[in-house]
Structure formats: C-alpha cells, structure tokens
C-alpha cells in the first residue's frame, strides 16, 4: 500500500513539481480508481442520447462498466453492467433501446430499472426462498444532472452536483445554455484508445493552452488563414492577447480567449454560417448573463475540464470523457454538441469542422494522441532515473490559488499552469483521504 507521505512527495503542487510515478504506477492506478473515481461526479450521458423509455447508453465510471437507461416515467437509472451471478456484461450493445437486459451466460434477466425479473428454472435450481429483490444490478449510488448532462457517483455522501461543479457552472452556461432549447448531441459516439495515462488528457483540457502552438502547428499551417493568426499575438499578459484562465479548488479548469476572432481561429476552415449564427446569439447571451459572460461567448472556451475526466471545447463544439484503461492507456469517448434550435446548416458545419480538428482523425488531435501515447510508452518501463525527475508544472507559479471570485472561480490573465496545479491538488486531496 502506497503511503500518504509518498503520494505527497509525488505531487508537490504548491511548488509545481509532479513525479512521473503518478502516470505509471499500477498501485497508484488502483488507488485512484477507488479514491478519485469512487468519490467524484462522473459524466454518464446527455439527455439527447437517451430520449425515449428503454434507451440506454453503455459507458464506464472509472474502471467500472455502467449502463444508463431512460425509464418509462422519464427519469433515468444507472447501474453496473455486471450480472450478479458471474459478473458478465448484461448488455453488450453500445447504445440502443431495450425492454430488458438478459445475461447470455445463464439467462438472468433484468428490467430497465435494473431489477432482477427472471431467472431460468429458478424454483427448480434455487428453491422457493430465492429472493429476486436482493439480486438486482448494483445501482450507481447518486445521479444528478446539469444542463442535460447526467452524472453519477459511487459515493452516497458526495455533495450535490451543483456544489461540486461550483463556479464551473458559470462557464458551462456560456456555451451550453445560450438558446432556450439547450443543446443536443449529434448522433454517434466516437471511441478511440490511446496510450498514456488519462490524467495527461484531463490536465491538458484543464489548463494547457501552451501546447497548441507546437503540438498543432501543422493544423494551423494548413487550415488557418493569416488574418486569423493575430489571435496568437503573444504580447498580452503572460501570453496571447485576450487570454484568461479559470481554476478552482474543486480541480476544474478552463482557458478562454475573449477576442472576437478567437472562435474563428479555433474553428478555422469552417464556413461563415457558424460565425453569423454565433453573432446572432450574442445579444441573447449578453441579456441573460451580462458582458463578462458575453465576452467569453464572443471569444471561445479553448479548453475546459470538469474534474476528473470530462472535457469541453466551445468552438469547435466537443464534449469528451477520458476513460482510464490502466496506468498507460485511456479511451476517449467524444461527441459533438450543437444548439438544439440552431439551423440544420449550422449544426452540420459544426459537426464537420469539429471532427476535422478533433478526434483521432482530427488535424489537431491526431498529434495529441501521438504525444500522450509517446509519453505513456516512455514511462512504461518505469526507468528509475526517469522516475527521479520531477516534471515542471511551474508556469505562473506566483498566481494566486483558489476561488478568488466565488461565482467565477480563480481567474488569471494569460497562460499559466494553475489549473493543472489545482487539478493535482484536488487529486492528492482525494488520494490521501483514506476515508477513516
């Protein structure tokens, strides 16, 4: 068992120093499945993925397979996708509609609420006293939703989702609640396996605007016209003009740019219909949320992460989860979201341009997959000298930590690694809480 002292020596977040051990150790991986994924709110599915009774979506909460299912009364249920008899998946579809979930090993069958409703030859093989009510699929302890996003938690005593999201809600609202109808996901879940630890992707979306200029230089070179490049003017405070970062003690983080052409820069290659549409929405955002939020909408959320593993971009419009698959592997589930009431042409352009920058085929994200996988394989042999290194998370170390503005979280101008430091601060807090 790894000691709390050892964990603290690996995550010296106040000094901006992080050990490679947290990205490569089997022991740390197993512990974080319990202490981080077991005690956080984890994204399951969006309302628009499961609109009708019986609609289900199969996903994971950390290392645990989970089914989320729309109930006949419109509510949602979620439970482990593991038969109580031998642990087989009771649903082997990715998504769809079903009246029941029947295990194909011995035929135990569960209804859409997870109740055990049928056991083959039950009276003959188990006798009269078999109590089916005790052997339903294990429910996810807590379910809650925000802006149509359903989350689950295995921790029955976790704070409610609104409290958990805290000031991150302010930023979510600026890109998810701009139209009365809200947003919807376009059909299809893109799934891709990458090497490398899940935290590489989560921390990148929390705070890493720094990598883009190098990692994605070839995307910019081919898609981004010169007139959009001034947004990369580095003469602002600590980096690009108009750039800000948000971070919070809850471990969530985001980076956004409030200059008007930032969103066109971020979705370079799209037709003007997206820009015209977003311009037309801006007065509504201004009226509803005020100038500060409108300035974020006018620009772009360039990256965001809800602790631990749910990430967003506001243009292109993608939502994704990084499912941990061992210390050196992660599986991305990626979606494209659009305003439900947007014109069809706008929705289609958003889908098209988002998938041209993001996803394993994306002109940008191909190279993230390369980088994450390459770091993973570089650490996978656990070279003792490599693991003596403390990695540098010290950009903007003098920035003030914490929730300096209760509604909006901590904010700094320009680039820095405060969101990453607070991500690991939260991670360490959970990892060193033995629950005793």
């Amino acid at each position, binding site marked *: 068992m790894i000691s709390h002292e050892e964990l603290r020596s690996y995550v010296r977040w106040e000094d901006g120093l992080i050990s490679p051990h947290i990205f490569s150790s089997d022991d740390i991986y197993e512990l974080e499945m319990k202490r981080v994924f077991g005690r956080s709110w984890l994204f399951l599915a969006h309302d628009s993925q499961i609109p009708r009774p019986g609609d289900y979506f199969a996903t994971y909460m950390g290392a645990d397979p989970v089914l989320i299912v729309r109930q006949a009364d419109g509510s949602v249920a979620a439970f482990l996708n593991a038969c109580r008899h031998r642990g087989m998946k009771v649903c082997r579809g990715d998504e769809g509609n079903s009246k029941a979930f029947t295990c194909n090993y011995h035929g135990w069958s569960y209804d859409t609420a997870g109740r055990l409703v049928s056991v083959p030859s039950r009276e003959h093989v188990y006798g009269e006293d078999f109590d089916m009510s005790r052997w339903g699929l294990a429910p996810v302890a807590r379910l809650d939703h925000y802006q149509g996003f359903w989350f689950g938690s295995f921790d029955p005593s976790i704070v409610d989702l609104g409290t958990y999201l805290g000031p991150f809600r302010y930023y979510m609202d600026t890109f998810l609640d701009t139209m009365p109808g809200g947003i919807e996901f376009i059909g299809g*879940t893109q799934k891709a396996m990458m090497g490398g630890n899940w935290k590489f992707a989560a921390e990148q979306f929390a705070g890493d605007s720094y990598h883009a200029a190098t990692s994605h230089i070839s995307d910019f070179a081919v898609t981004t016209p010169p007139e959009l490049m001034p947004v990369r003017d580095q003469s602002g405070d600590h980096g690009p003009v108009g750039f800000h970062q948000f971070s919070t003690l809850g471990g969530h983080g985001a980076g956004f740019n409030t200059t008007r052409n930032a969103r066109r820069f971020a979705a370079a290659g799209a037709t003007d219909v997206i820009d015209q549409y977003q311009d037309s929405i801006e007065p509504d955002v201004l009226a509803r949320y005020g100038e500060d939020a409108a300035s974020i909408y006018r620009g772009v959320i360039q990256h965001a992460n809800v602790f631990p593993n749910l990430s967003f971009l506001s243009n292109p419009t993608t939502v994704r989860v990084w499912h941990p698959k061992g210390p050196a592997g992660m599986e991305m589930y990626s979606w494209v979201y659009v305003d439900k009431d947007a014109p069809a042409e706008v929705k289609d352009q958003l889908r098209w341009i988002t*998938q041209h920058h993001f996803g394993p085929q994306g*002109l940008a994200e*191909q190279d993230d997959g390369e980088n994450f*996988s*390459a770091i993973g394989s570089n650490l996978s042999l656990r070279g003792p000298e490599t693991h003596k290194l403390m990695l540098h998370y010290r950009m903007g170390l003098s920035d003030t930590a914490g929730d300096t503005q209760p509604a909006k979280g901590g904010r700094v101008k320009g680039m820095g690694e405060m969101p990453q430091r607070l991500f690991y601060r939260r991670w360490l807090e959970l990892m060193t809480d033995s629950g005793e």
Partner: protein
Amino acid sequence: MDVLAPEATPLALPESLLIDSPVRAEIEQFLYFEARLLDDRRYSEWLSLCADDIFYWMPMRRNRLTRDRSRELTEVGELAHFDENKTSLRWRVEQLNTNLHWSEAPPSRTRHLVSNVQATPAATAGEYDVVSNFICYRNRLEQDVDIWAGERRDVVRHVAERQWQLAKRTIILDQNVILSANLSVLF
C-alpha cells in the same frame, strides 16, 4: 433462420461482375497504383487521383443488439471517422507534407494491401462501383504497430486514357473503438 434447403442450387456469380477483363484489370491496377503512392509517401500525387467532387467517408461502427442491428453504421450527417471533400483531403495531404505533423514525423512505415476486388458498371457511363478489402499495416518509431482491416466501397471514374479518379470512397473499418493513437494515414 436463413438456412438453405438441401435442394438449393449454387448461388450464381452476379452477371454484373463479369465485365470485360481488360477494364477489370485496369481498375485493379488503379487501386494498386494509388496504394503504392500512399506507401511511397507521394501524397500530392495521390490527391490528383481524387475527383474534385469526391466524397471520402468512414462511418463509425457500433455494437448493436439484434433489433438495432440495422443501425450498426453511423449515417451521413452523424459522426464519422472521416467525412472528407477535396478541400479537407487537401488539408490532410498538406499537413502530411509539412514535416511538422508529429503523428507522421518521423514518418510511419505503411503497407496498404488491397484484395477481393469486385468491379461492376455504375449507373453513370464511365463509372464503376468497386468493392475491395484492405489491410493497412503501420509500423512507426521503435515498436509501434497498428493494423487496420476493412472494406472499401468505391466509385471510380474513367477520365481519359490511363487516367482514373476516385469519385467516392466509403471505408468500412473493422473496429469499434479506434485502436491506434490516431488515424493519420489515408485508406
């Protein structure tokens, strides 16, 4: 259950597959030609084989239970692994040529194998529907290996003597979760 009765006669080869063998041979050579260009990293020349109106598409493949089986593939307009026109294929080729595209710099070693070619005349004169199977092997850096297998449903267009172009390519990849760090190769 779809089981043949004992007296059933052998399923006949569709007559449409029996096109003139010189044409069939030339179409096969075209497929090998473009595969060779990709393996030789002659991407710009490969792009010249794509028609200006090309639709190059790789839908996603989902695990679907029995009654949802018809929804295995995502549809046009839903998410896809590739949804390309000539402009976006040009982006990909230009990106490969930057030498700053880290997924392919240093470059991968690829081998496109094409087989099971079946060509039938399409409704438009000079166009053929061509179905083939492929395996693309990628080896890169020290030990990275990816193997992609699948089917391609192409429409190839005869443009001029010895000149053919791809008018449409649908790639049915035999993977649910993409198992490679990226899809930085063309199929």
